[in-house]
């Protein structure tokens, strides 16, 4: 049971034609190629493509993917629609968030908020805040504290969220 990388990474260049319809060109490169190298190549290929196409080039995405070769068995009754929402305070005073699909019931309070004192949750908080992880907000600001944590379902309205979240 392990995440195994695909043989190649993918460079996807995005276009938009005069009608606004979108399209793309996909290139592959050996998985071991450094992203910095691919960025350089992407700039070369974008310039070459720009001369061939009537569409505007909007940008590109470089993706490195891994797939689990022998997935474990999900817990009976697990549903990815049942989200654990973790909202974090960042060093620049803003917030960032991520969700954990199919959040386990054992970390939930009766209201639907997540028990911040639960050992599994404190382990996550310690790892995200005090650990050496590189994760940050989209603007690069460090994550400094857990602000809110609660369960929600796809389609939950704000009124349905737990008040003590």
């Amino acid at each position, binding site marked *: 049971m392990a995440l195994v990388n695909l043989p190649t990474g993918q460079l996807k260049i995005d276009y938009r034609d005069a009608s606004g319809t979108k399209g793309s060109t996909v*290139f592959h490169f050996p998985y071991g190629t450094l992203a910095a190298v691919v960025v350089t190549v992407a700039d070369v290929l974008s310039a*070459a493509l720009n*001369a061939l196409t009537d569409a505007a080039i909007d940008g590109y995405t470089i993706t490195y993917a891994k797939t689990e070769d022998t997935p474990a068995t999900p817990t009976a009754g697990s549903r990815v629609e049942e989200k*654990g929402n973790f909202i974090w305070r960042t060093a620049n005073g803003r917030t960032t968030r991520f969700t*954990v699909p199919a959040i386990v019931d054992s970390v939930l309070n009766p209201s639907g908020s997540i028990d911040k004192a639960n050992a599994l*949750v404190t382990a996550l908080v310690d790892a995200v805040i005090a650990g050496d992880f590189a994760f940050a907000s989209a603007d690069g600001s460090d994550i400094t504290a857990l602000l809110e944590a609660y369960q929600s379902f796809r389609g939950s309205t704000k009124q349905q969220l737990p008040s003590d979240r």
Partner: protein
Amino acid sequence: MLRPNATVELVWQDETGSTAVTSLNCSSSLTIAEIDADATALASILASLTGAVLVRQRIKYKTAFEADTVASGSAPITRTGIFFFDTGGDLPDALISVPAIKDEMIMSTGTGAGVLIDTSNGYVSSFIAAVIENGISNPFADDIVSFISAYLQSRV
């Protein structure tokens, strides 16, 4: 221009087979190996918080979209140039599609008129050279070594 943040996507699958993503940000100045190590460590912590199982991981570097770029002509996205490349020996060939190919890249005379892409066009030959000389491969990591053919195709 590369965005300052790279994105890590952890894909989880539940009992029904449905999938959902935990999406995280980190600096795009980090290498794949550095991001991969953190993603693996965090996934092992998240695994105890979810009834779903991790089935896939994606690390993405994206460029910021260029403002006010406009199409230079009227060719629709579906008017596609299909380029075939050889990877040597009996290895699978590689295919690269170029949407909204310009009319002037298509041969206007001879047996391939209106269909074949004109490889004597300087822009076409520059693109072909860029593909061959920059480590591009087929999806199985077999390096592209030479150009085979290119023609116009409508891809709806």
